[in-house]
């Protein structure tokens, strides 16, 4: 039996995992990454659109700062986010992007002088400042007051991921590719690493560590149509669930992206609409201004997705053999713009649809896109309940995004959370409490348990076909736990998913019996895990009798702060349970810098929390008093909701910004 010891085990080599690894390495701790695929092939590579950071270099970003970014993020989350975490995030995003620039990301830059852009279907001239020339530029993305989304042409995620992976090479981070974590090792309420399976040889390895970080990304693939890479299957969340101790947060918060191509679900970036692309119906009619006169195509993602669905339900969709869809029209942007700034979109259209987007509109429909829920952590990234287990990136519920994340905030989250969590983990590893007390027999036991499970799958007879169970799960999630939800459908979904979970205990791997590289065996054990994750999503959605952000209940259309201003926590204390255990974590209005308000879409149906008015009054009084006294925006912020002391010391300084402190 193979056992490997390290200080910090990082499961996942996407942006989040790589940033944690290089950070702890810098602090002098050993870091070891295991990943299903070479890190550069992680899903992070697919982020085309950009990264939010309030640099305020470009003309349309003028006046932007942490406060504006904070407000956008909280409103976007429909007040579900943790406001302290959001503050830490917006404060560090400029630092993270500047770090990445230093490490080689060729961010697109401001070109001084006039250029034409298309805003709201009108040609306008934007004059960039002389003094901003050569600094990092930004584009428009949905749900933001300023142009804040920084990008590298059409390959933001790719260039960030490559820079981070190269940095990991430079730092000599150990990386084991094609290695899949299949269970976490725990002992007396503490996590000590993971059991992993080599996907090439089938060998089981125990990685034993002081701290373990799950950075495995989202769970989009529990849905039948998703923009996510096919390895985004929620295995990290399942690993945490299966410890019986760690909790997951807000699993029902699932985002749908308005514009994935039909039928394969490949995303066309929000940049298409940010740059001036339009949504049209079967009559070629631009319908978004009817629903959202103000923000139109650039309303928040969840809103646009719902409006599109609504419009198609009115019979305005284009019919096709793959179901109804609408058109995304970017022909008005012109060939030159498309070929330079939206080349990836052009390639996708050519290679997967056989059309030229400079001439023809693109068939699109809302498709599963992002997992706001995940492993629930403290602001340090550590699980609230399992010591030594950390999580960040899309895998986690740190809770930056609440019930809806803004485009561009998530690659930003991966590197910001990564750099912060690396510091907190390093502090933990520096402290005596981190020394390991696990007996080797426990480790051997963990390996044995996994070996037996795999053997059972390979030797079982007359069992269930994993593919059948998985496809059914995907359909249920899509049809009944999708964009619009209601009690009846959700109830049916939960009942049937539970049934599928019971059947999954009896999965048999047919024919393909190899103990080494064996895709059928992989599918079998992942299906068992995915079903648990699907249940946490469906059950959380059934219980949450309100609409908030991406969670939209037809039978409960109002956001209900009085009863539902809280996070759903799910766990799986007993392996024999067939349903998750659910509890709730209150979100306190009394501590909010930005008390709950109206998000600004459709009619305001919000049922406010009884403390909201009081808190609003307090916030207003403090602001007025301090403004009169001539306080800075930092002093006002600090008076309302101090957070700086939570940040590692090295990241507390004020960010330099053109026109503000220069």
């Amino acid at each position: 039996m193979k056992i490997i010891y390290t200080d910090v085990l990082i499961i996942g080599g996407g942006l989040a995992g790589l940033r944690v690894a290089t950070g702890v390495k810098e602090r002098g701790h050993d870091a070891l990454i295991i990943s299903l695929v070479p890190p550069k092939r992680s899903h992070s590579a697919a982020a085309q659109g950009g990264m939010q950071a309030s640099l305020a270099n470009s003309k349309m970003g003028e006046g932007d700062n942490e406060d504006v970014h904070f407000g956008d993020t909280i409103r976007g989350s429909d007040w579900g986010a943790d406001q302290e975490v959001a503050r830490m995030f917006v404060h560090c995003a400029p630092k993270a992007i500047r770090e990445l620039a230093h490490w080689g990301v060729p961010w697109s830059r401001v070109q001084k002088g006039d250029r034409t852009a298309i805003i709201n279907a009108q040609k306008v001239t934007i004059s960039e400042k002389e003094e901003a020339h050569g600094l990092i530029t930004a584009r428009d993305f949905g749900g933001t007051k300023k142009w804040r989304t920084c990008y590298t042409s059409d390959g933001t995620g790719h260039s960030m991921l490559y820079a981070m992976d190269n940095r990991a090479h430079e730092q000599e981070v150990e990386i084991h590719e094609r290695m899949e974590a299949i269970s976490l090792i725990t002992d007396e309420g503490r996590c000590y690493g993971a059991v992993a399976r080599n996907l090439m040889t089938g060998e089981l390895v125990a990685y034993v560590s002081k701290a373990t970080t799950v950075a495995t990304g989202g769970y989009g693939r529990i849905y039948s149509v998703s923009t996510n890479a096919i390895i985004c299957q929620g295995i990290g969340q399942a690993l945490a669930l299966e410890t019986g101790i760690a909790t997951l947060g807000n699993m029902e918060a699932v985002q749908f992206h308005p514009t994935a191509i039909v039928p394969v679900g490949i995303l066309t970036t929000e940049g298409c609409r940010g740059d001036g692309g339009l949504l049209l119906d079967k009559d070629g009619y631009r319908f978004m201004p009817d629903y959202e006169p103000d923000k139109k195509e650039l309303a928040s993602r969840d809103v646009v997705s719902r409006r599109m669905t609504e419009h198609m339900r009115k019979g305005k969709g284009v019919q096709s053999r793959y179901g109804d869809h609408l058109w995304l029209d970017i022909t008005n942007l012109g060939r030159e713009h498309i070929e330079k700034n939206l080349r990836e979109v052009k390639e996708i259209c050519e290679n997967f649809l056989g059309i030229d987007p400079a001439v023809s509109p693109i068939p699109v429909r809302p498709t599963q896109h992002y997992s706001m829920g995940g492993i629930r952590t403290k602001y340090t990234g550590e699980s609230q309940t399992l010591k030594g287990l950390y999580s960040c990136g899309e895998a986690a519920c740190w809770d930056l995004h609440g019930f809806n994340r803004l485009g561009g905030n998530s690659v930003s989250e991966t590197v910001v959370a990564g750099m912060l969590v690396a510091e907190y983990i390093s502090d933990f590893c520096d402290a005596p409490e981190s020394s390991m007390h696990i007996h080797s027999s426990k480790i051997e036991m963990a390996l044995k348990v996994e070996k037996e499970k795999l053997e059972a799958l390979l030797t079982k007879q007359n069992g269930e076909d994993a593919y059948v169970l998985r496809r059914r799960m995907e359909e249920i999630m899509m049809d009944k736990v999708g964009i619009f939800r209601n009690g009846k459908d959700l109830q049916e979904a939960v009942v049937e998913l539970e049934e599928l979970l019971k059947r999954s205990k009896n999965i048999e791997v047919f024919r393909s019996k190899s103990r080494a590289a064996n895709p059928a065996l992989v599918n079998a054990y992942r299906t068992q895990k995915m079903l648990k994750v699907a249940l946490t999503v469906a059950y959380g959605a059934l219980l949450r009798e309100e609409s908030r952000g991406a969670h939209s209940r037809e039978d409960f259309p109002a956001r209900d702060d009085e009863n539902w201003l809280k996070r759903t926590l799910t766990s799986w204390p007993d392996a024999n349970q067939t349903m998750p255990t659910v509890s709730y974590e209150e979100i306190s209005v009394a501590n909010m810098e930005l008390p709950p308000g109206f998000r600004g879409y459709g009619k305001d149906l919000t049922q406010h929390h009884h403390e909201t008015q009081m808190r609003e009054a307090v916030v207003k009084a403090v602001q007025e008093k301090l403004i009169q006294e001539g306080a800075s925006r930092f002093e006002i912020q600090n008076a309302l909701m101090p957070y700086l002391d939570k940040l590692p010391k090295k990241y507390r300084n004020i960010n330099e910004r053109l026109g503000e402190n220069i």
Partner: protein
Amino acid sequence: MSQEIAPRLLKIDVLRFDPNDKNDFPHIERFEVVESDGMTLFIVLNEIREHLDNSLMFDFVCRAGICGSCSMLVNGRPTLACRTLTSKLDAHITLAPLPLFKLIKDLSIFTGEWMRYLNEHLETWIHDKESEIQYDKLEERMEPSLADEIYELDRCVECGCCVAGCGTIQMRPSFVGAVGLNKVARYHLDPRDKRSDAEYYELIGDENGVFGCMTLLGCEDVCPKDLPLQSKIAYLRRMMLKTAIKN
């Protein structure tokens, strides 16, 4: 989308081999799949695995032509399988793993190991001992057109198609290939990287670098990202010659 005509029956010949199975040997196996609208090789292979043979091994991650995982020989030519529409091919299709890389099983190869070695060997990261990161300060400026140029070369997805298409690597496995030379060109162009021409010469000024390349063009033809490999190799060669003469 195309009109309704009777769908074709695709005959897919796959070169299969499981190195972990002592009794196995490389052999061709044929699968038949009914073509559907907008079908890619990603859809074909998954259908085979789900309905015909669940042991068939292949690699897809993004299935959108972005991550570089799914390179294989399609009718003998290295390419990304996920973005290959079957409608652009004959009904008889042969699939084989990319040569020169370690075979995992069937169509699955270990490109990651090779690429990592390459990156470590060429030190594909910004070398800058002098300036310390100042993340609280305004970032260093860069000409917008230069940033675009660097990104152009940064677009390589490490798919290995150029390696499989290269005659030189077959004869000299230590040759860094077009992918390696392109990476060097990328860092050479980047003002943030402070390596001198002499240091670059150390890296690629020999037969395993620019002087190994026989400019047979195999690489540029197959690069799915249309990287300007030829002109970059030619550029590096000129620069290296200059450096050689200077020293």
